[in-house]
């Protein structure tokens, strides 16, 4: 399985021809540098774009079009990849061979995304004010709602503490305090600038070819004067300070103990696979040290896990515990970090973690969106890395490689969300 690639209208087009799926799956990645000044405006753009296009000004008509395309799945997502603010538009549409359709569904799907992103509804040189106001409210409610889900709240808070003072602390949806200042005029200005700064990558996985997709992209995407900004990668500096402890108090039953750690390794580094193995041994599986020692041995938690974000060089540990068990749980978690650093890794832990990772990378090839996301990660870091390459690297990882990774892990913040004292 190999992607065919071509640049069309300033867009990097990537196509994987395959008959494996009953659908055409598409993703448009739009990347601009993450910045304090415009993070919120940029985040608001896709919300307003989805409301209306020059051709189809009313939202309800746009939604009906998706139904007419046999219920095409359409959505967008905003995230921060290191120093890049990433907006992703996705569509999943069935292959015409299962239905009787007047026009190629693939072409209609590409046209839909192209219209949304490049020919929005503009009235009097601004976005339609009603749409901007409504979507500001939607983003506001979403930012405010983070506190409702305590697991999400605790991980957002621990990340904010670790990257305090840096753009990496920002939520991908931006800052609440920016929202009141955004107007239909300023947002349109930011949109035009965004369109020029964006690096666009458009992916299709399905029974098609680069020629067919390129033709539809040429017709559907109108982008002029695009000067895609070079993607700037984040260099995580090692910490010199002692870890800090932060406690928040809310009306909760269960305490959330999270640790934020630096692990400055990304896809370009030769030990990226060892970092995945490290994270696996520490906390991403039921055989991992955190799960076994915090949950199975001590019954302290239902969940205790780690995750690793190579875009930020960020390792995080999350757990939900009884509040009175804070000290006990923290000690056990810290012991696990020390154990790996000391090379205390059993043959079983190593073999099982590798087998799980290899399986996970192999499984990505059965899900079209996973295929796209994996390939894009390699494109983002500008490395030539297939899932086979990474599988080989995982298999070759030794205990010494993992200890080497462990030495780069630096605990930055201990975060505890607890109840209000009575």
């Amino acid at each position, binding site marked *: 399985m190999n992607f065919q690639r071509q640049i069309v209208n300033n867009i990097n087009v990537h196509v994987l021809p395959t008959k494996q799926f009953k659908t055409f799956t598409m993703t448009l990645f739009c990347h601009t540098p993450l910045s304090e000044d415009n993070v919120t405006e940029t985040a608001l753009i896709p919300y307003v774009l989805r409301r209306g296009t020059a051709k189809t000004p009313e939202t309800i008509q746009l939604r009906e079009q998706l139904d007419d395309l046999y219920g095409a799945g359409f959505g967008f997502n905003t995230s921060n990849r290191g120093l890049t603010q990433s907006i992703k538009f996705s569509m999943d549409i069935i292959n015409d061979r299962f239905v009787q359709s007047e026009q190629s569904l693939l072409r209609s799907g590409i046209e839909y995304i192209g219209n949304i992103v490049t020919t929005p509804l503009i009235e009097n040189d601004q976005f339609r004010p009603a749409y901007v106001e409504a979507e500001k409210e939607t983003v506001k409610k979403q930012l405010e*709602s983070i506190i409702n889900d305590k697991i999400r709240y605790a991980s957002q808070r621990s990340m904010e503490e670790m990257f305090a003072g840096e753009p990496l602390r920002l939520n991908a949806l931006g800052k609440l305090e920016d929202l009141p200042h955004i107007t239909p005029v300023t947002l349109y200005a930011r949109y035009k600038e965004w369109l020029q700064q964006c690096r666009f990558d458009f992916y299709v996985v399905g029974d098609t070819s680069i020629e067919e997709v390129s033709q539809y992209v040429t017709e559907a995407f109108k982008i002029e004067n695009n000067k895609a900004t070079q993607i700037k990668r984040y260099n995580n500096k090692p910490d010199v300070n002692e870890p800090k402890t932060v406690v928040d108090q809310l009306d909760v039953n269960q305490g959330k103990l999270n640790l934020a750690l630096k692990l400055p390794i990304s896809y370009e580094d030769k030990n990226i696979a060892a970092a995945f193995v490290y994270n696996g041994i520490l906390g991403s599986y039921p055989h991992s040290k955190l799960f076994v020692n915090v949950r199975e041995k001590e019954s302290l*938690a239902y969940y205790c896990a780690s995750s690793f974000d190579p875009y930020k060089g960020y390792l995080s540990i999350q757990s939900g515990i009884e509040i009175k068990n804070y000290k006990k749980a923290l000690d056990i978690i810290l012991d696990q970090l020390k154990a790996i650093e000391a090379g205390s890794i059993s043959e079983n832990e190593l073999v099982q973690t590798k087998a799980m990772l290899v399986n996970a990378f192999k499984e990505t090839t059965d899900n079209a969106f996973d295929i796209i996301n994996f390939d894009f990660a390699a494109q983002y870091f500008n490395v030539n890395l297939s899932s086979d390459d990474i599988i080989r690297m995982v298999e070759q990882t030794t205990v010494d490689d993992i200890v080497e990774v462990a030495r780069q892990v630096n605990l930055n913040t201990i975060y505890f969300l607890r109840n209000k004292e009575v």
Partner: protein
Amino acid sequence: MEVIKYEHVEETLYRKILDNGLEVVVLHKPDFKKTYATFSTKYGSIDNHFSVGDQPEIRVPDGIAHFLEHKMFEEPEGYDDVFTTFAKYGASANAYTSFDRTVYLFSATDHIQENVLALVDYVQRPYFTEENVNKEKGIIEQEINMYGDNPDWRVYYGLIEALYQKIPVRIDIAGTVESIYKIDKDTLYRCYETFYHPQNMLLFVVGHESPEKIISLVEENQKQKNFKPLGEINRYFEKEPNEVAEKRKIKHLPVSMPKVMMGFKEKEVNLSGEELVREEVITKLLLDIIFSSSSKLYQQLYDEKIIFDSFGFEYNCSPLYSFSVIGGDTPNPDLLVTKVSDAIKELQQKGIAETDFERVKRKKVGNYLRMLNSPEAIASEYTKFRFRQADMFNVLKYYQSCTIEDVNRRLKEHFDFDQLAISIVESAPQA
């Protein structure tokens, strides 16, 4: 072995019911690297009062099906830990419990035969001791506390509690901290021996491995095990009155904005099998026409800032209970309920528009086909339908044959305002 071809969706199923009653079904996906398998028992949180054959009936503590699911991962001395076994073969394993099913699963790209056997073997090898049962209580207590702090879960469960008076669907799947401390190893064994008998179970495998090979592998494996014949399982449910338990239920939790869910409880729940599926399809189409993001009502409420992207709806049906769920975050729960109710009443007068009906029907056909890309979804849906004596692959046919008259009939039947209950989660009033 039966071979069933579903040409309209380009899928082929292989099926065999083994001598001990276990049903094995394989969906052959030669292009897929991954194999996904589920081993399911028709046993969930609602089965808390039962008997077998002419033995006396028994009531068991709430949450025991879920507790049992946790404890199946325990292995006797001399066996590797379940997760170790799967990890060795590169498989990721998991399990979940619903109202009427408990499902054990793995996904893997290699060692498929070993993994299938590992799945069947560990689920058929219970090992409960007083010590390992007590140890689990602390873990499940934390799981219950985690959900207790989750407002989306609380508003959803609040609605089911408001709708139902007797049917144990109103009891949280995990039980309560109090009820799980009453669970002991003997009761666990009793439930296990009843509901984990092969004749109450189904193994479903999706993947590239030859179906003949998988079926004969499992057949061989089962021949080496002895299961005493099981009498018929009787499940006892108190008669559920037509009336909802509570019209309006409020819970206090710190939230940025209130959450509301409204639901209509069906009065008649005498359908089963294919008939039930057909009614489910019609009702889901109806809800989609009225409430999906392409509906006029959705767009109007969104423009009025009464709903946001979190607004959603679903329809749950079974031979015992059927209800809709409609709602999301809103600054004003009562206003949202009023507006939705008014819109439904107006529609009941006017009827559904032909164009809306055709458009949404097309969408549902596409959604169904897209679902078939996902081995996880196929396995889950197939088992759910099969346990109700129905076939998931017929769903497409029901969408295609559904008429606007069907939908208008359900519009009048389902939305009976005597059957409405409302659940709200909002922050406690400031003292």
